[in-house]
């Protein structure tokens, strides 16, 4: 096991730079999730860590060793691919033991290590099968088994769950997390799914357009997103954004929207009066009230444990989630009150957090 230091890494394809100086410190044993929309450079970063892509500038170290010019096989990492990349002509056991075979390990050692990994992942019964004969979840487990057998310093996962159906994805998510808790191997996991990031990570790195927008613990990112992008990306359903101007008239400050609604905030941020801001409020931080913002119910989605309501304020739709059941129907006029201490304020131009 080892820590990983990614320092000011850049990557260009031809003259086109896709990573603009990314730095991510990863502690020994940490589970780090790189998350972002497609094309943000997260997979490229992972492939550079694996040694499948050259590093244009900057350094990547695993443990104390800078690995920029180290061959992939010398890096002591194991990777799980999105399409699993199982060798179709080898049995499960051969797939898992392939790296040991190449290393020249003797047969009893290969058998022993393969069996140990098979036990961890409950693959014993499948060892003589070919990848074709396995289901998606089983293939996924074999791919992880192949990584475990190598007992690497770092596990790399490249969107490993995106080929699975929703139910299996939830199950495998828990399985990967449990595996990490058991093996405590440093793990870098790439996904575009923020729920995977939230549920699995010790540390989330949110990326967009080749830069790191924010990194931190899942709830840290959820509670205090540093900018509008992170605020909108983390959390489902996404945070509501309302455009408005900041009003600080001596006492209690508020944000006023174009149609006159007053959105409460607790403290006046260090910003001038009448500044244009984006007011962010998560769906679960909206409450029914008698005197809140007036909204018209558009859609009601009861989910049992909670009810999602899409409501229209002026011309804008916002989503609210309520845990208590209340008889609302499309067309109803309701009043919503944002919880002032859960409101997020972002600069309208830069998108940076201002409160």
């Amino acid at each position, binding site marked *: 096991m080892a820590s990983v230091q990614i320092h000011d890494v850049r990557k260009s394809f031809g003259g086109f730079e896709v990573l603009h100086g990314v730095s991510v410190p990863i502690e020994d044993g940490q589970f780090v999730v790189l998350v972002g929309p497609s094309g943000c450079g997260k997979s490229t970063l992972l492939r550079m860590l694996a*040694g499948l892509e050259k590093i244009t500038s900057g350094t990547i170290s695993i443990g104390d060793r800078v690995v920029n010019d180290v061959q992939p*096989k010398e890096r002591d*990492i*194991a990777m799980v691919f999105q399409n699993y990349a199982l060798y179709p002509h080898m049995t499960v056991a051969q797939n898992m033991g*392939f*790296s040991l075979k190449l290393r020249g390990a003797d047969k009893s050692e290969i058998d022993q290590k393969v069996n140990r990994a098979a036990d961890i992942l409950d693959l014993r019964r499948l060892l003589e099968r070919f990848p*074709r004969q396995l*289901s998606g979840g089983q293939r996924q487990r074999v791919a992880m088994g*192949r990584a475990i057998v190598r007992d690497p310093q770092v596990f790399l996962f490249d969107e490993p769950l995106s080929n699975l159906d929703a139910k299996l994805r939830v199950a495998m998510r828990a399985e990967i997390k449990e595996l990490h808790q058991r093996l405590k191997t440093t793990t870098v996991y790439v996904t575009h799914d923020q729920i995977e990031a939230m549920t699995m990570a010790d540390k989330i790195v949110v990326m967009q357009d080749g830069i790191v927008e924010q990194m931190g613990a899942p709830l840290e990112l959820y509670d205090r997103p540093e900018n509008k992008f992170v605020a909108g990306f983390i959390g489902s359903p996404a945070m509501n954004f309302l455009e408005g101007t900041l009003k600080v008239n001596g006492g209690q400050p508020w944000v006023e929207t174009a149609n006159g609604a007053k959105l409460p905030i607790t403290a006046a941020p260090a910003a001038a009066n009448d500044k244009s801001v984006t007011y962010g409020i998560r769906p679960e931080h909206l409450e029914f009230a008698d005197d809140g913002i007036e909204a018209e119910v558009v859609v009601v989605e009861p989910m049992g444990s909670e009810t999602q309501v899409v409501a229209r304020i002026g011309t804008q739709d916002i989503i609210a989630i309520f845990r208590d059941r209340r008889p609302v129907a499309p067309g109803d006029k309701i009043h919503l009150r944002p919880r002032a201490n859960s409101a997020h304020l972002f600069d309208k131009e830069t998108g940076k957090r201002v409160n």
Partner: protein
Amino acid sequence: MTTIQTSMPEAGKVIPRSSAWDRLWINRNWLAMWFMLPAAAFLILFLAYPLFLGVWMSFTDDRIGRGGVFVGLENYEWLRDDSIFWLSVFNTLLYTIVASAIKFAVGLYLALLLNRHMPFKALIRAAVLIPFIVPTVLSAIAFWWIYDSQFSIISWSLIKMGLISHNINFLGDSNWARASVIFANIWRGVPFVAITLLAGLQTVSPSLYEAATLDGATSWQRFRFITYPLLTPIIAVVMTFSVLFTFTDFQLIWALTRGGPVNATHLMATLSYQRGILSGRLGEGAAIATAMIPFLLAAIAISWFGMQRRKWQQGTDND
């Protein structure tokens, strides 16, 4: 022709019983037969009939312009004691084995090269196909000049370089002639092997190579443990075809050497043509041609059983 009764028959009316012919005409199983009939007729007329006629002729003493009588195995008994026939069998085997082996090696190497990223990839791939596109007789004429005893460009170049002092008699010397026709055949046959194997290579997912790289495989090991096993099905097919084409080759030999010198390059196909058509002894020519069948069946059988062994391609798909 036929009507299908959909409404209830009116009372008192007699339902006409369909005839056997009508039933044959609408029965689902027979319908399939009717649809296959045109294709079957085509195959019978142009493939099966000539094949069986040829085999039948080999048991007669047919000559051109005069029908023969059944003579049993007489033609084959003649051939058994015919040293030229056995020479042609040897030539054919030598020609097929050497040319196919080299075509496979060169074709595979070329396919691996063409599978890499390089500038003008599409253009180079197209260029590789040229020998395959040029009509055989045309390329044979070109080779004829290249191998000419007096004007050969190869001899000329080697003399200019000071490596030899006399022209090489490419098509006049037995061993040179064999080597020359084999080379010409390889030149023609490599593109087919290369392009087909290239198609096979492109079906191998790049992530398998990446996974193997991370597993610690060198480039040779990636070829040995990933590329080659995944390519075996297509290798089996392409090499079966290559062997069949080479074994039955006629055009190139006939245009270059006509089987000479002193039958050194006579293949079974050319010998069959010479005996059957030029000498007019159809029965004997047919016997030589028929003698090729066991070899061809053996080649097909080998690749067939080779293909059946690959368990990893079978089994249920769980996708």
